[in-house]
Protein backbone atom coordinates (compact mmCIF):
# COMPACT_ATOMS: atom_id res chain seq x y z
CA UNK A 1 0.00 0.00 0.00
CA UNK A 2 2.70 2.50 1.08
CA UNK A 3 4.95 1.34 -1.76
CA UNK A 4 2.16 1.90 -4.32
CA UNK A 5 1.58 5.36 -2.85
CA UNK A 6 5.31 6.01 -3.21
CA UNK A 7 5.33 5.07 -6.90
CA UNK A 8 2.20 7.16 -7.55
CA UNK A 9 3.86 10.11 -5.83
CA UNK A 10 7.03 9.73 -7.88
CA UNK A 11 4.98 9.58 -11.08
CA UNK A 12 2.95 12.69 -10.16
CA UNK A 13 6.09 14.64 -9.23
CA UNK A 14 7.91 13.71 -12.46
CA UNK A 15 4.87 14.66 -14.58
CA UNK A 16 4.49 17.87 -12.57
CA UNK A 17 8.15 18.75 -13.08
CA UNK A 18 7.87 18.17 -16.83
CA UNK A 19 4.70 20.26 -17.01
CA UNK A 20 6.33 23.09 -15.02
CA UNK A 21 9.21 23.30 -17.50
CA UNK A 22 7.67 22.13 -20.78
CA UNK A 23 3.91 22.85 -20.76
CA UNK A 24 3.82 26.00 -18.63
CA UNK A 25 4.68 29.14 -20.63
CA UNK A 26 7.29 31.75 -19.78
CA UNK A 27 5.54 34.38 -17.68
CA UNK A 28 5.32 37.79 -19.36
CA UNK A 29 6.43 40.12 -16.53
CA UNK A 30 8.64 37.88 -14.33
CA UNK A 31 10.16 35.64 -16.99
CA UNK A 32 11.21 32.06 -16.23
CA UNK A 33 11.84 32.76 -12.55
CA UNK A 34 8.07 32.50 -12.11
CA UNK A 35 8.47 28.71 -12.58
CA UNK A 36 9.44 28.62 -8.89
CA UNK A 37 5.70 29.01 -8.26
CA UNK A 38 5.14 25.36 -9.32
CA UNK A 39 7.11 24.17 -6.32
CA UNK A 40 6.54 27.05 -3.84
CA UNK A 41 2.70 27.14 -3.92
CA UNK A 42 2.21 23.31 -3.69
CA UNK A 43 4.67 23.13 -0.77
CA UNK A 44 2.77 25.79 1.20
CA UNK A 45 -0.67 24.31 0.39
CA UNK A 46 0.52 20.79 1.34
CA UNK A 47 1.82 22.20 4.64
CA UNK A 48 -1.68 23.69 5.27
CA UNK A 49 -3.07 20.17 4.73
CA UNK A 50 -0.47 18.79 7.17
CA UNK A 51 -1.37 21.26 9.91
CA UNK A 52 -5.13 20.82 9.44
CA UNK A 53 -4.67 17.02 9.70
CA UNK A 54 -2.53 17.60 12.80
CA UNK A 55 -5.27 19.74 14.41
CA UNK A 56 -8.00 17.17 13.64
CA UNK A 57 -5.84 14.29 14.94
CA UNK A 58 -5.08 16.34 18.08
CA UNK A 59 -8.80 16.88 18.76
CA UNK A 60 -9.39 13.15 18.22
CA UNK A 61 -6.59 12.34 20.65
CA UNK A 62 -7.99 14.64 23.35
CA UNK A 63 -11.47 13.10 22.93
CA UNK A 64 -10.57 9.40 22.60
CA UNK A 65 -7.01 9.22 24.01
CA UNK A 66 -6.14 7.02 21.05
CA UNK A 67 -2.33 6.68 20.57
CA UNK A 68 -2.89 6.20 16.80
CA UNK A 69 -4.32 9.76 16.58
CA UNK A 70 -1.28 11.08 18.44
CA UNK A 71 1.07 9.25 16.08
CA UNK A 72 -0.75 10.76 13.08
CA UNK A 73 -0.49 14.25 14.62
CA UNK A 74 3.22 13.77 15.32
CA UNK A 75 3.97 12.50 11.80
CA UNK A 76 1.87 15.21 10.15
CA UNK A 77 3.59 17.92 12.19
CA UNK A 78 7.04 16.70 11.25
CA UNK A 79 6.29 16.53 7.51
CA UNK A 80 4.46 19.87 7.70
CA UNK A 81 7.52 21.55 9.23
CA UNK A 82 9.71 20.21 6.41
CA UNK A 83 7.21 21.45 3.79
CA UNK A 84 6.62 24.90 5.26
CA UNK A 85 10.36 25.37 5.81
CA UNK A 86 10.96 24.58 2.14
CA UNK A 87 8.05 26.84 1.17
CA UNK A 88 9.67 29.75 3.02
CA UNK A 89 13.07 29.01 1.47
CA UNK A 90 11.76 28.75 -2.10
CA UNK A 91 9.69 31.90 -1.55
CA UNK A 92 12.79 33.72 -0.40
CA UNK A 93 14.69 32.53 -3.51
CA UNK A 94 11.80 33.75 -5.67
CA UNK A 95 11.64 37.06 -3.78
CA UNK A 96 15.24 38.11 -4.42
CA UNK A 97 15.00 38.57 -8.22
CA UNK A 98 11.37 39.80 -8.20
CA UNK A 99 11.23 42.03 -5.06
CA UNK A 100 14.93 42.76 -4.76
CA UNK A 101 15.15 41.25 -1.26
CA UNK A 102 15.46 37.80 0.29
CA UNK A 103 13.17 38.66 3.20
CA UNK A 104 10.86 41.45 4.34
CA UNK A 105 8.71 41.67 7.46
CA UNK A 106 5.39 41.98 5.63
CA UNK A 107 2.22 40.35 7.01
CA UNK A 108 2.30 37.17 4.89
CA UNK A 109 5.97 36.42 5.44
CA UNK A 110 5.81 37.23 9.15
CA UNK A 111 2.69 35.13 9.77
CA UNK A 112 4.14 32.16 7.90
CA UNK A 113 7.41 32.51 9.85
CA UNK A 114 5.35 32.43 13.09
CA UNK A 115 3.59 29.30 11.78
CA UNK A 116 6.95 27.63 11.11
CA UNK A 117 8.32 28.53 14.56
CA UNK A 118 5.14 27.32 16.31
CA UNK A 119 5.29 23.89 14.68
CA UNK A 120 9.03 23.70 15.29
CA UNK A 121 8.16 24.35 18.94
CA UNK A 122 5.55 21.59 18.71
CA UNK A 123 8.25 19.09 17.69
CA UNK A 124 10.65 20.39 20.35
CA UNK A 125 7.95 20.05 23.03
CA UNK A 126 7.53 16.40 22.09
CA UNK A 127 11.23 15.85 22.53
CA UNK A 128 11.48 17.54 25.91
CA UNK A 129 8.74 15.67 27.82
CA UNK A 130 9.68 12.13 28.88
CA UNK A 131 6.18 10.90 29.73
CA UNK A 132 4.60 9.99 26.34
CA UNK A 133 1.01 10.49 27.55
CA UNK A 134 1.74 13.96 28.94
CA UNK A 135 3.73 14.92 25.80
CA UNK A 136 0.82 13.82 23.60
CA UNK A 137 -1.68 15.84 25.68
CA UNK A 138 0.38 19.07 25.72
CA UNK A 139 1.23 18.75 22.01
CA UNK A 140 -2.43 18.16 21.11
CA UNK A 141 -3.35 21.47 22.78
CA UNK A 142 -0.48 23.29 21.06
CA UNK A 143 -1.39 21.70 17.71
CA UNK A 144 -4.95 23.01 17.94
CA UNK A 145 -3.85 26.52 19.00
CA UNK A 146 -1.18 26.70 16.27
CA UNK A 147 -3.75 25.81 13.59
CA UNK A 148 -5.47 29.15 14.30
CA UNK A 149 -2.53 30.81 12.50
CA UNK A 150 -3.40 29.11 9.16
CA UNK A 151 -6.34 31.43 8.29
CA UNK A 152 -4.22 34.38 9.43
CA UNK A 153 -1.46 33.34 6.99
CA UNK A 154 -3.91 32.81 4.14
CA UNK A 155 -5.95 36.01 4.57
CA UNK A 156 -3.03 38.25 5.61
CA UNK A 157 -2.66 39.41 1.99
CA UNK A 158 -6.25 40.73 2.11
CA UNK A 159 -6.25 42.10 5.66
CA UNK A 160 -2.96 44.05 5.43
CA UNK A 161 -1.03 45.83 2.70
CA UNK A 162 1.66 43.36 1.74
CA UNK A 163 4.45 42.96 -0.78
CA UNK A 164 3.35 39.36 -1.30
CA UNK A 165 0.92 38.74 -4.13
CA UNK A 166 -2.65 37.50 -3.41
CA UNK A 167 -3.28 33.70 -3.45
CA UNK A 168 -3.02 31.98 -6.85
CA UNK A 169 -5.48 29.14 -6.31
CA UNK A 170 -7.59 29.51 -3.16
CA UNK A 171 -9.13 32.92 -3.75
CA UNK A 172 -12.65 34.30 -4.32
CA UNK A 173 -13.63 33.76 -7.96
CA UNK A 174 -11.10 30.95 -8.44
CA UNK A 175 -7.98 30.88 -10.61
CA UNK A 176 -7.91 33.67 -13.19
CA UNK A 177 -4.79 32.68 -15.17
CA UNK A 178 -4.57 30.55 -18.30
CA UNK A 179 -5.09 26.76 -18.33
CA UNK A 180 -1.44 26.26 -19.34
CA UNK A 181 -0.46 27.66 -15.94
CA UNK A 182 -3.33 26.14 -13.95
CA UNK A 183 -2.78 22.49 -14.98
CA UNK A 184 0.94 22.30 -14.14
CA UNK A 185 0.12 23.95 -10.82
CA UNK A 186 -2.66 21.43 -10.07
CA UNK A 187 -0.53 18.42 -11.05
CA UNK A 188 2.31 19.65 -8.84
CA UNK A 189 -0.15 20.26 -6.01
CA UNK A 190 -1.37 16.66 -6.38
CA UNK A 191 2.23 15.43 -6.39
CA UNK A 192 3.13 17.29 -3.19
CA UNK A 193 -0.07 16.25 -1.38
CA UNK A 194 0.68 12.62 -2.35
CA UNK A 195 4.26 13.10 -1.15
CA UNK A 196 2.91 14.41 2.16
CA UNK A 197 0.63 11.35 2.48
CA UNK A 198 3.51 9.00 1.60
CA UNK A 199 5.87 10.55 4.17
CA UNK A 200 3.16 10.54 6.85
CA UNK A 201 2.30 6.88 6.17
CA UNK A 202 5.94 5.87 6.56
CA UNK A 203 6.47 8.06 9.63
CA UNK A 204 3.33 6.68 11.33
CA UNK A 205 4.51 3.12 10.63
CA UNK A 206 7.91 3.97 12.10
CA UNK A 207 6.40 5.59 15.22
CA UNK A 208 4.23 2.51 15.77
CA UNK A 209 7.24 0.20 15.43
CA UNK A 210 9.24 2.38 17.86
CA UNK A 211 6.37 2.34 20.37
CA UNK A 212 6.13 -1.46 20.15
CA UNK A 213 9.90 -1.83 20.53
CA UNK A 214 9.86 0.03 23.87
CA UNK A 215 9.53 -2.60 26.65
Amino acid at each position, binding site marked *: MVKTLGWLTALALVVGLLMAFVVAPREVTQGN*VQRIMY*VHVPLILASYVAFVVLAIASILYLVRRDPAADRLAHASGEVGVVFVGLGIATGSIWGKPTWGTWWTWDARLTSVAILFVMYLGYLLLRGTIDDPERAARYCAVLGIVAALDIPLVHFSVYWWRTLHQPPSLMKPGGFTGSASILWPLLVNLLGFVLLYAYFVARRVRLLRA*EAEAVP
Partner: protein
Amino acid sequence: MPDNWSFVAAAYALTAAVLFAYWRRLAKKEREVTMRERSNANRSRPTADRSRLTAERSGSTAERSGLSAERSQEPSRTGHPRPDPDSRHSLQ
Protein backbone atom coordinates in the same frame (compact mmCIF):
# COMPACT_ATOMS: atom_id res chain seq x y z
CA MET B 1 13.00 41.00 -16.85
CA PRO B 2 15.94 38.55 -17.06
CA ASP B 3 15.09 34.87 -16.64
CA ASN B 4 17.24 34.24 -13.53
CA TRP B 5 17.60 30.53 -14.25
CA SER B 6 20.08 30.21 -11.39
CA PHE B 7 17.33 31.13 -8.91
CA VAL B 8 14.97 28.58 -10.49
CA ALA B 9 17.68 25.89 -10.32
CA ALA B 10 18.47 26.81 -6.69
CA ALA B 11 14.80 26.54 -5.63
CA TYR B 12 14.25 23.16 -7.32
CA ALA B 13 17.63 21.75 -6.23
CA LEU B 14 17.08 22.81 -2.60
CA THR B 15 13.61 21.24 -2.56
CA ALA B 16 14.87 18.00 -4.12
CA ALA B 17 17.85 17.81 -1.75
CA VAL B 18 15.82 18.40 1.43
CA LEU B 19 13.03 15.99 0.46
CA PHE B 20 15.55 13.33 -0.55
CA ALA B 21 17.41 13.81 2.75
CA TYR B 22 14.15 13.42 4.69
CA TRP B 23 13.29 10.27 2.71
CA ARG B 24 16.77 8.84 3.44
CA ARG B 25 16.37 9.68 7.14
CA LEU B 26 13.07 7.78 7.29
CA ALA B 27 14.63 4.78 5.51
CA LYS B 28 17.61 4.82 7.91
CA LYS B 29 15.36 4.95 10.97
CA GLU B 30 13.26 2.07 9.60
CA ARG B 31 16.42 0.00 9.12
CA GLU B 32 17.53 0.77 12.68
CA VAL B 33 14.17 -0.30 14.12
CA THR B 34 14.22 -3.53 12.06
CA MET B 35 17.77 -4.29 13.23
CA ARG B 36 16.80 -3.62 16.86
CA GLU B 37 13.78 -5.91 16.56
CA ARG B 38 15.96 -8.66 15.06
CA SER B 39 18.64 -8.34 17.74
CA ASN B 40 15.94 -8.39 20.45
CA ALA B 41 14.49 -11.56 18.93
CA ASN B 42 17.95 -13.17 18.80
CA ARG B 43 18.71 -12.12 22.37
CA SER B 44 15.46 -13.54 23.69
CA ARG B 45 16.10 -16.92 22.02
CA PRO B 46 19.51 -17.64 23.71
CA THR B 47 18.01 -16.45 27.00
CA ALA B 48 15.37 -19.14 26.69
CA ASP B 49 18.06 -21.70 25.87
CA ARG B 50 20.16 -20.50 28.79
CA SER B 51 17.24 -20.72 31.22
CA ARG B 52 16.55 -24.27 30.00
CA LEU B 53 20.22 -25.18 30.58
CA THR B 54 20.15 -23.61 34.04
CA ALA B 55 17.03 -25.61 34.87
CA GLU B 56 18.75 -28.81 33.73
CA ARG B 57 21.87 -27.95 35.71
CA SER B 58 19.91 -27.15 38.86
CA GLY B 59 18.12 -30.46 38.40
CA SER B 60 21.44 -32.31 38.25
CA THR B 61 22.65 -30.39 41.33
CA ALA B 62 19.54 -31.48 43.16
CA GLU B 63 20.24 -35.06 42.10
CA ARG B 64 23.82 -34.71 43.29
CA SER B 65 22.76 -33.29 46.63
CA GLY B 66 20.26 -36.12 46.98
CA LEU B 67 23.11 -38.54 46.28
CA SER B 68 25.33 -36.92 48.87
CA ALA B 69 22.49 -37.10 51.36
CA GLU B 70 22.29 -40.81 50.71
CA ARG B 71 26.03 -41.14 50.94
CA SER B 72 26.09 -39.45 54.31
CA GLN B 73 23.97 -42.24 55.58
CA GLU B 74 26.45 -44.83 54.34
CA PRO B 75 29.70 -45.74 56.06
CA SER B 76 32.85 -43.99 54.84
CA ARG B 77 35.39 -45.70 52.62
CA THR B 78 37.66 -46.36 55.60
CA GLY B 79 34.90 -48.37 57.17
CA HIS B 80 34.20 -45.98 60.04
CA PRO B 81 30.55 -45.08 60.49
CA ARG B 82 29.75 -41.42 59.78
CA PRO B 83 28.75 -39.61 62.93
CA ASP B 84 25.29 -38.21 63.16
CA PRO B 85 25.64 -34.39 62.76
CA ASP B 86 23.28 -33.80 65.70
CA SER B 87 25.53 -35.78 68.02
CA ARG B 88 28.56 -33.53 67.28
CA HIS B 89 29.66 -31.12 69.96
CA SER B 90 30.94 -27.69 69.24
CA LEU B 91 34.62 -27.08 69.90
CA GLN B 92 35.27 -25.80 73.40
